[in-house]
């Protein structure tokens, strides 16, 4: 488990040695981007109104305080389930050139392929820790697609020491959660056998 500090813009070289299970802290630009924004880009063919090339996106729907005059404050922000975006992520990475995809839980084969081919990482912020994360947001610099409502708006943030981010898919396409899942499923089958012997309540 190595620790890295990355600052946007992020190059292919910056992330080539980072492996699954390593820890990253991010400085620079991070934009929240989730279900409908992915769908609009990939299925509706609408260009993303924020340039995330060589930067980071976060699968998240934050709580924002509207301070008026176009100023916003980040109240609480944590990741949402990344797997919901799996259907779109390969194409999203290809089209946008995003380097870090931050979310919760693992992602699948499409994201693995894209991380390998276009050099990107999927990382996990420990979910539920939304106040800790909000305090790493120095400023909300832009808000796009506000018609989607608070959770789905693209909130572009300047962050400092945002993390810990645990690498779940690296530029080799290795997948921490898929590796864990194989292990979890083996253990599960053994446990089911053990428990089933003790629950013959219908006789």
């Amino acid at each position, binding site marked *: 488990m190595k620790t890295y500090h990355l600052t946007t813009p992020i190059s292919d070289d910056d992330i080539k040695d980072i492996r699954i299970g390593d820890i990253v802290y991010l400085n620079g630009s991070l934009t929240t981007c989730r279900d409908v924004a992915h769908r609009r880009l990939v299925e509706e063919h609408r260009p993303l109104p924020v340039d995330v090339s060589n930067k980071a996106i976060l699968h998240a729907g934050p709580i924002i305080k509207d301070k008026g005059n176009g100023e916003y404050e980040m109240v609480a922000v944590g990741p949402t389930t990344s797997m919901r975006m799996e259907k779109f992520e390969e194409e999203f990475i290809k089209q946008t050139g995003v380097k870090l995809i931050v979310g919760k839980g693992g992602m699948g084969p499409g994201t693995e392929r894209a991380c390998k081919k276009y050099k990107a990482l999927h990382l996990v912020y420990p979910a539920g820790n939304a106040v800790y994360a909000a305090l790493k947001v120095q400023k909300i610099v832009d808000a796009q697609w506000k018609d989607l409502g*608070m959770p789905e708006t693209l909130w572009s943030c300047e962050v400092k020491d945002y993390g810990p981010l*645990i690498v779940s898919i690296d530029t080799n396409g290795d997948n921490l959660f898929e590796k864990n899942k194989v292990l*979890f499923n083996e253990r599960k089958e053994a*446990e089911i056998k053990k428990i089933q012997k003790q629950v*013959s309540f219908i006789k």
Partner: protein
Amino acid sequence: MDTMTYDYTEPLLSPKGQRMRDLLADYISIISHRLPDDVTAKLLELQKVEVDPLQKLVYDTMMENQLLANKLKRPSCQDTGALQFFVKVGARFPLLGELNQILKDAVYRATKKAPLRHNAVQTFDEFNTRMNVGDGIPSVFTQIDGNSTNIEMYVYMAGGGCTLPGEAKVLMPGEGYEGVVRFVMDRMTSYGVNACPPLLVGVGVATSVETAAMNSKLALMRRVDSENENANAAKLEHLLEDGINNIGLGPQGFGGQKSVMGVNVVNTARHPSTIGVAVSTGCWSHRRGLIKFDEDLNYELPYNKGVEL
């Protein structure tokens, strides 16, 4: 799309109704940033068991986050859920007729005050009401508790991530409780891993999908260390708890020593031809409360020692 709006007008409540609404709005805000006592105690216990640096880092972040959330009075997780109330009310509770309006307005006010995230999307029209109330949100499940003048209710912030693993199924009796075990365990490795472990797992056993599902949700309202009164059901709780722990999901599914805060089973009788089974999960940030009022709105908060509204 952005022109659609949801009509909500704050109701004209009686003075007592207004007081109950205000107390509940305060309580909802507190639930959003302070975990119930049983959950906090369990997390501290589980934290000590993890030994590897990654798992320790995750638990340290969780503890720091809860300290900050309490200090700043901000929702500790941004997903403050779609609000649910599980109510037991006496027929002579004086605000029974106003109850639905009180609960909905309490959510509306707490959403502004806390603030909570806007989590009510009108289905088919597919727009966010931006008020956290909508058709059927908050959801209110009411049980009449004889002729008493009291009311008690669980208040639950059902987040998206931990709602996702929810599943119900009707088994044939031939599949037995062995089938119940398989059903619950399979859900842990497919969906539980992404639902922010350590989880509280609620298992419902009954006749059909809706009865089993309701039981599984009520199971999440019980304390993490509570036990079913039936000896066989309690045995199943412990077997599942050990079994899921031995899978070793660890905090956030990164792997580790433990997977769950607990497993609670709630059961009701079944039709002889079916076994309804359901599983619901609560994440580590299990924000549920319990409030009891008497007819004068004196209240108790059994899950939150030392908290006053």
